[in-house]
């Protein structure tokens, strides 16, 4: 610290590394005395603060000057300090003296024994020196001998070394010279491995000395032979007959011969390709002629494909991988190159194979039993899994699944088509059976039975198709656990595509009957409309939900894609049923309307004779209405009648004819009050509801009949208004209307409706009459009862 700063010997102060051990303490002073640097002392430098180490005032320093020291002390210190210093110094001197004495005493014996030892050593060394001299002389002799021997043997040794070198060289040369012959022999013996080993040993040497003509000759020979050999190997390689092991050896050797690996890969693959393609061709021939039937069933086809083509493909892949891909000593590049080539090769060939399989699947059109196809697809898929395991880099597995999915979708489509065709056939059958009995002149066919048969056979067909389709999801089928088959197949394929699609097509077909025949009329038998309407209604009430529940149970739908809800399907079916029934009413109404219209339009109402009978057309109308009533009654319930009247139609009619009817058009005959007619009829209309003629009907017999009668009577009314009547014309209409009144009321839900319309007809006729003299009600009744 301060001491280090002032000291002229900075070395010890800095480099002190010795620990201040207590053992060294006693020597500290001495050391200081002898001027040796003592780090311990310096550590204690604090004892004499402000002292000048090494300077003339340093009492322990080498350059101590007592004069200076004293002067300094005297100058700087007080008396007390001087006194202290003096005592201190005396103390130090004393301790130094005692230290010295102790040292001398301690080391005295050691000095004596050291002196003795030195003396003894002096004697011993003398003896040793003599012996050493002797040894030196002997060694010299030995050296001389040895030198002499070496010099004599020198030449021979050199010669031997040289000879042995020459010998080795000669052997190598001999090997080289013999190499062509050996190689030839090896080739002859087909010991190609040996030949390659020989050649690979010699190759580098030959290469090194190729500038020498003789070696070059050898090299040329060897290369020729080896080229030949390589050629042979390749031939063998190319030759299909050699087994896999031979082939592997060939490739191994060729690779050792530095043949380019890429070329070998290509060759190997092209060779394999030839064979595989030949197999594919055989497969293709089994497809049969285009347009013709396939030679054997699909399972057999797939079996052959699997057993021949796919298994050979597996073999090729396996051996190729063994040869080119999975070898430890291969460079990474080559492995990758080889792998890429293999993948491309496999993909290419599999593509052809797939296209063949797809073509075969497309030939599978029969929509009966599905199990063969499913089994075939399963086998196909299973074998591809094995192949894919061998070669994960190729996309065969995915493509194979893709094919299976496509085939399945196609299958579903075919089933839908088949169902639709079946439905159409059913319709044709129904049409025929509807038409046939009429020709035979028998009773009309039992509609309920027809409907029952039709809906049962359609339902059966649906069930069997569901069963066929269900095979695709069987547990033992490998592809059934693919995501497609778990989700989309069930929901979109079977439920939506097949079942919902079929139900929709049923409705659509039915609706077409309403549209296409609407204008032309008559091409669809009305009975069929009625039947289909009931069918659709049945579907709405029960069949749809039954089928869909069945489907959902069989195909547990795990998919969450949106599906058509039962309600919307039911709504569609109901709407279809409604339209069909409306159309039925329209068609039937039109048929009766036409009869009435013709009957009104073609007659000369002014010059007609007095009515004696109900016109035949009215009887016909009633007959037709009755038969329609029977027909509808077979399929639809009775329905509710409004204000059910007593079955006595007479009583009702008498009210209608006498009081109301008379009061209605009696005033109009009096010329004084033409307004009253309108007023009266208008007032009456105010209280009666407006009648919609072509309005939707309800699903019951009464409503259907009401609709038909409404349409017919309204036509009657409109036709009457376009004609002019004579007295007897009016009376004829009166008779006709009474007759209708007698028979039609029982068919409709509200008999007032019939009354109202018939009133209108008679009223309008009276208006259109030149000489309106109504017939007596009693006469009318008599005529009608007679008719």
């Amino acid at each position, binding site marked *: 610290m301060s001491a280090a700063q002032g000291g002229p010997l900075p070395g010890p102060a800095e480099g002190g590394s010795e620990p201040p051990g207590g053992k060294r303490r006693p020597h500290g002073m001495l050391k200081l005395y002898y001027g040796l640097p003592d780090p311990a002392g310096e550590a204690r430098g604090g004892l004499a603060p402000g002292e000048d180490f090494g300077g003339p005032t340093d009492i322990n320093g080498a350059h101590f000057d007592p004069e200076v020291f004293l002067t300094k002390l005297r100058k700087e210190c007080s008396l007390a300090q001087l006194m202290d210093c003096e005592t201190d110094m005396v103390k130090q001197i004393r301790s130094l003296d005692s230290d010295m004495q102790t040292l001398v005493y301690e080391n005295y014996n050691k000095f004596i024994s050291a002196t003795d030892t030195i003396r003894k050593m002096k004697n011993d060394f003398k003896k040793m020196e003599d012996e050493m001299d002797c040894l030196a002389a002997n060694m010299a002799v030995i050296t001389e001998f040895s030198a002499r021997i070496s010099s004599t043997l020198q030449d021979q040794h050199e010669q031997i070394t040289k000879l042995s070198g020459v010998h080795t060289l000669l052997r190598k040369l001999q090997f080289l010279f013999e190499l062509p012959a050996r190689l030839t022999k090896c080739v002859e013996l087909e010991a190609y491995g040996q030949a390659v080993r020989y050649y690979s040993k010699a190759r580098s040497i030959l290469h090194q000395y190729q500038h020498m003509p003789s070696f070059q000759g050898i090299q040329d020979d060897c290369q020729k032979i080896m080229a030949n050999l390589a050629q042979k190997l390749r031939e063998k390689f190319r030759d299909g007959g050699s087994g896999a092991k031979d082939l592997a050896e060939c490739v191994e050797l060729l690779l050792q011969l530095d043949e380019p690996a890429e070329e070998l890969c290509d060759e190997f693959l092209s060779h394999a390709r030839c064979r595989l393609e030949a197999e594919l061709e055989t497969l293709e021939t089994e497809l049969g002629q285009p347009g013709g039937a396939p030679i054997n069933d699909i399972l057999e086809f797939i079996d052959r494909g699997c057993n021949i083509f796919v298994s050979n493909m597996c073999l090729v892949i396996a051996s190729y991988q063994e040869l080119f891909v999975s070898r430890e000593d291969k460079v990474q590049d080559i492995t990758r190159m080889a792998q890429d080539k293999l993948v491309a090769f496999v993909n290419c060939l599999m593509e052809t194979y797939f296209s063949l399989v797809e073509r075969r699947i497309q030939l599978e059109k029969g929509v009966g039993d599905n199990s063969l196809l499913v089994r075939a697809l399963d086998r196909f898929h299973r074998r591809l899994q094995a192949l894919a395991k061998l070669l994960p880099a190729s996309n065969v597995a995915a493509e194979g699944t893709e094919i299976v999915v496509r085939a399945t979708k196609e299958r579903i489509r075919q089933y839908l088509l088949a169902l639709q065709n079946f439905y159409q056939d059913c319709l044709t059958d129904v049409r025929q059976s509807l038409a046939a009995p009429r020709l035979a002149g028998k009773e009309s066919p039992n509609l309920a039975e027809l409907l029952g048969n039709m809906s049962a056979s359609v339902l059966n067909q649906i069930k069997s198709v569901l069963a066929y389709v269900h095979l695709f999801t069987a547990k033992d089928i490998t592809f059934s656990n693919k995501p497609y088959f778990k989700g989309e197949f069930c929901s979109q394929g079977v439920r939506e595509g097949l079942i919902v699609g079929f139900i929709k097509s049923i409705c659509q077909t039915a609706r077409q009957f309403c549209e296409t025949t609407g204008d032309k009329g008559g091409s669809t038998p009305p009975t069929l409309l009625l039947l289909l309407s009931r069918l659709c209604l049945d579907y709405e009430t029960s069949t749809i939900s039954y089928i869909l529940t069945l489907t959902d149970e069989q195909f547990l739908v795990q998919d969450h894609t949106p599906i058509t809800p039962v309600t919307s399907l039911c709504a569609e079916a109901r709407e279809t049923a409604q339209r069909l029934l409306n159309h039925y009413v329209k068609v039937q109404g039109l048929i009766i309307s036409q009869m009435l219209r013709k009957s009104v339009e073609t007659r000369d109402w*002014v010059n007609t004779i007095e009515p004696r009978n109900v016109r035949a057309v009215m009887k016909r109308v009633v007959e037709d209405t009755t038969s329609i009533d029977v027909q509808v009654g077979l399929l639809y319930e009775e329905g509710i009648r409004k204000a059910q009247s007593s079955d006595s139609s007479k009583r009702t009619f008498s009210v209608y004819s006498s009081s109301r009817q008379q009061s209605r058009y009696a005033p109009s005959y009096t010329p004084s009050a033409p307004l009253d007619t309108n007023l009266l009829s208008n007032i009456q209309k105010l209280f009666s509801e407006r009648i*919609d*003629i072509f309005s939707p009907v309800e699903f019951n017999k009464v409503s259907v009949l009401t609709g038909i009668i409404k349409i017919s009577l*309204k036509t009657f009314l409109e036709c009457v208004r376009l004609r002019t009547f004579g007295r007897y014309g009016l009376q004829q209409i009166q008779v006709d209307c009474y007759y209708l009144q007698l028979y039609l009321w029982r068919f409709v839900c509200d008999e007032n409706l019939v009354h109202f319309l018939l009133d209108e007809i008679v009223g309008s006729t009276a208006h259109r009459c030149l000489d309106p003299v109504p017939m007596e009600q009693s006469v009318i009744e008599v005529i009608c009862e007679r008719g």
Partner: protein
Amino acid sequence: MEDAAPVIYGLEFQARALTPQTAETDAIRFLVGTQSLKYDNQIHIIDFDDENNIINKNVLIHQVGEIWHISASPADKGVLATCYNKTLDSKVMTCAAVWRMPKELESGSHESPDDSSSNTQTLELLCHLDNTAHGNMACVIWEPMGDGKKLISLADNHLLLWDLQESSSNAVLSNSALLEGKGQLKFTSGRWSPHHNCTQVATANDTAIRGWDTRSMRQIYYIENAHGQLVRDLDFNPNKQYYLASCGDDCKVKFWDTRNVTEPVKTLEEHSHWVWNVRYNHSHDQLVLSGSSDSRIILSNMVSISSEPFGHLVDDDELSDQEDHHQEKTKEPLQDSIIATYEEHEDSVYAVEWSSADPWLFASLSYDGRLVINRVPRALKYHILL
């Protein structure tokens, strides 16, 4: 924007025949012909005072018989033609004649309806369209754009073209065409196209519609089975020369392009009974009226096949005005739709006609003699105009 209530006018007799006074373009005036076998038939001249919502009527006696069809001359306000039933020796014949109404009634006299003295005026007969050789007259149609000198009448299966000469006092049959075919063919109605220089006429018989060229009197198009049942009426689109509307007993109104008649362009099926009448609005051909024996009148907006484009084409001027442009954008183009169903009638409606003076007004006539004058809803009117 409350729509004005319909105005109802009652005739004493049953009636089928209605026409606007075609030559009148200022006053709203309709002619109605009555049907009565007992009394003298009448032609009511109905003046409608739009501002006061009042109807003024004048009655002309039409003594010759009940009126089945009436049509007013497009050139002379005072001239009209009727088809009427004549009973002779217990034989009923439908004849046609051209009439002139008294001069003072031509432009409507605003006398009070109670004034009975004016109610007894008679029509002046100009000429008969002699049909003894041709059968019953179904209707008489005037050349729409002409000078009121050319007429076509449909008599059973004859299409007759007449020239009126000597100030309409003489009708000369200038040309005719005969409809031939199986059974008894009968024209039910016809319309004269205002396009092609008035050389085309369309007629309906049974379920078919035929087009005729008046120069050659040859058939130019034929829509077989235009309707499932009888075709009742026709009308030409006043702005689109190939468009034709028809209606019939299948409750439908159909729109046709006469260049391609295999399928209708559009079909409306809104009525619940036979449709007797269909009429295009004279100015805004998207507005179509139809009257039916279900006692209803339906006003439809057939924008998609009208001459007016969907929405409005925005002019450049309007584009520059930001506000206007904004307004234009908010206005949605109208879809084809039923605008209104008018249910004021209690009986079958056999005639419905637009006014020739006010494009937003129309009259309808039901069999019980009720004439109803109605307007296009104001909201739609402004939508079309603005």
